């Protein structure tokens, strides 16, 4: 047993840390939030050059992976430096396409995976919540009426992927006041070269296999701002090119969801550490009532709790990595535990960061804001806290 990063993995993380620290990611996020993707695409290219995407892709398709530990290391750094873009979704698409390839549907993987590895294509993914997650998820994933029906509203029922911001159809977005159930937004569809969409038969339809499909979406609805300025959501347009169909899509989509949840957990851990580090630095500097606020016991204890949350989320993350690497049937529970713990720890760190910073932390101009909203958004992305906890009950004791 060696349950620790090896020297190579540690060095890889450090090099990404150094690279992004030097790259002024906050400016790239601010541009990204305005829909100016240039600086973000430059970061993307650097991540690709550093080999990040090849880690998620299997050898036969131009990758060197999948290597979950290394992917985790990279996503912790993405989170720490709030790198914008559909990074999680990219890893999920790689998992999806390569699993499809293993099932005999190799064409989409052969077309897209090498391009993504090389940083020549940016992709994103829309997918419905897991069908077995009760009526709430079920409602969202209700059958779209046989083979994938070409109405934007029906995208509810599917995973989807579409191409280019230029194709946006402003009239077809979701209603902002719509209620709960995971309408499958695609993250940063306007910045992607391809938006993959998976449709699901929800496991009910007798003739439902046809509804399990993977599509390349022909466009997307209007971009909706998130509490995280770096996240731009849009509902993919329905229809488009169907890349694959049948039970293999369903199985590959489940695999993709697992990887997405894992990468999200890693990103959240990095976000939490960035929030804590900045807050500790602030607490050591800021004076109120004639004293550095970091010497107040109430401040110290909140920061200590934030550290405890993060330090005990980390082993769950790498435990999930080990399970993913082994293809263990327990991987779903391990990933769920890691996501629940990392996202809770990141959100708790965000609340502490706000409380310790006071009003300055509450302003968009202050850099802290770039991490605060992300901590909130990642909680729900690719598995809610409740869904994760339900899955985590299956953990080995």
């Amino acid at each position: 047993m060696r349950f620790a990063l090896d020297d190579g993995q540690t060095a890889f993380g450090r090099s990404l840390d150094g690279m992004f620290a030097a790259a002024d990611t906050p400016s790239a996020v601010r541009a990204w939030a305005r829909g100016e993707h240039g600086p973000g695409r430059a970061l993307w290219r650097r991540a690709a050059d550093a080999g990040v995407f090849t880690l998620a892709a299997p050898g036969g398709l131009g990758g060197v992976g999948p290597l979950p530990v290394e992917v985790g290391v990279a996503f912790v750094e993405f989170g720490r430096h709030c790198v914008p873009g559909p990074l999680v979704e990219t890893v999920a698409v790689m998992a999806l396409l390569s699993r499809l390839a293993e099932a005999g549907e190799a064409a989409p993987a052969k077309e897209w995976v090498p391009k993504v590895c090389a940083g020549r294509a940016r992709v994103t993914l829309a997918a419905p919540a897991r069908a077995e997650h009760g009526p709430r998820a079920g409602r969202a994933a209700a059958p779209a009426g046989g083979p994938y029906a070409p109405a934007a509203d029906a995208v509810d029922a599917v995973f989807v992927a579409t191409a280019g911001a230029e194709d946006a159809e402003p009239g077809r977005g979701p209603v902002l006041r719509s209620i709960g159930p995971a309408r499958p937004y695609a993250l940063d569809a306007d910045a992607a070269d391809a938006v993959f969409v998976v449709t699901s038969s929800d496991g009910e339809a007798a003739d439902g296999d046809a509804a399990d499909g993977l599509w390349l979406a022909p466009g997307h609805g209007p971009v909706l701002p998130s509490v995280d300025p770096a996240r731009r959501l849009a509902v993919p347009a329905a229809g488009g090119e169907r890349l694959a169909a049948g039970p293999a899509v369903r199985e590959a989509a489940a695999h993709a969801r697992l990887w997405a949840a894992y990468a999200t957990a890693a990103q959240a851990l990095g976000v939490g550490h960035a929030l804590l580090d900045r807050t500790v630095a602030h607490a050591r500097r800021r004076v109120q009532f004639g004293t550095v606020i970091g010497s107040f016991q109430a401040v110290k204890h909140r920061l200590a709790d934030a550290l405890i949350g993060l330090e005990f989320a980390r082993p769950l993350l790498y435990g999930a990595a080990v399970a993913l690497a082994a293809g263990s049937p327990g991987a779903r529970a391990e990933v769920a535990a890691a996501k629940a713990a990392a996202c809770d720890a990141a959100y708790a760190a965000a609340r502490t960061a706000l409380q310790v910073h006071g009003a300055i932390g509450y302003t968009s101009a202050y850099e802290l804001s770039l991490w605060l909203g992300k901590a909130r958004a990642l909680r729900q992305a690719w598995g809610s806290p409740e869904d994760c906890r339900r899955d985590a009950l299956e953990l080995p004791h």
Partner: protein
Amino acid sequence: MDLDLTPEETAFRAEARAWLAEHVPATPLAPPETARGFAEHRAWERTLYEGRWSAVSWPCAYGGRGASPVESLVFEEEYHAAGAPVRISQNGIALLAPTLLAHGTEEQRARILPPMARGETVWAQAWSEPEAGSDLAALRSVAVRADGGWLLSGNKTWSSRAVFADRAFGLFRSHPGADRPHRGLTYALFPLDAPGVTVRPVGRLDGKPVFAEIFLDEVFVPDEDVVGEPGQGWRVAMSTAGSERGTALRAPGRFTAAAGRLVELWRSAADPGDTALRDRVADAVIRARAYRLYAYGQVSRPGPPPEAEASLTKVFWSELDLALHETALDLLGADGELVDADWAQGWLFALAGPVYAGTNEIQRDVIAERLLGLPKGRRG
């Protein structure tokens, strides 16, 4: 011990409810952080005034209707239950007006309150400074004596609504030689368009210009716009601070209405076979009810509640507000992160609750020292 309204109070509730049903805009106004939205909200304040609902607790002479404390709570319940617009006059009505009623001159009340009630003059607060957030005694902005008044200079920040407001109230150091740092402050009123005033919008987490920074460079304020005695501003301001933490600014009706909407959301959005979030929904309902009944208890006692009670109240409502909105976002799932939706906007607003009007850390120190009699320690 009862919760019965008098016939007059019952009639008051019915009148408020009927008026609101008729007048509350059917479609939401534009957000008050835009010029257009601010104008729409100002017009709404005028509409409220015309119905004599803009400042119900004030004496009729200033545009109020002399409502009792119970009636004021009832009005807030009806207002929030009706889903009526945000009150851009709130800082003036809930913070400055009580101060003027307690410490102002009759001339000041007659001159300042009616235009406030009509929405003609919208007020912003100007307390904090970059180096004096929770620690107001560290204020550095100055008031220098001039002929017939004072010249204000310095830098105020976290001034809510100051981007579009007309005037502001704040504290300035007028007697720098005073023996203790919170002595020698003066409570002054100033126009936000006066020569020497620069207002710079400050974006909230979502970028909306909810606050502003205010730079003052020898801004002249005549003596008539000083509230209370010069140099006594701390004492004057503290009467406002109690209002800011207590039920006046964050009326129970606000939370009972939000809790009701949360239950609706839970019933429509949650998986009926998965009650994992139910306890959190119920906690919001229970706590909103507790806050409402607590306020009824306060107004059942003669006289204003003890100052330190406002600290209990402030911690309670700020944590309730945040927990309630966090629960809503969790219920909304993937839609919870859409920042322009009502619940997310409410969450952003609630996030600031534990910080402003004295951090909850300070409030807990106050509770421990003044209500429980524990020894004074270092403030934090």
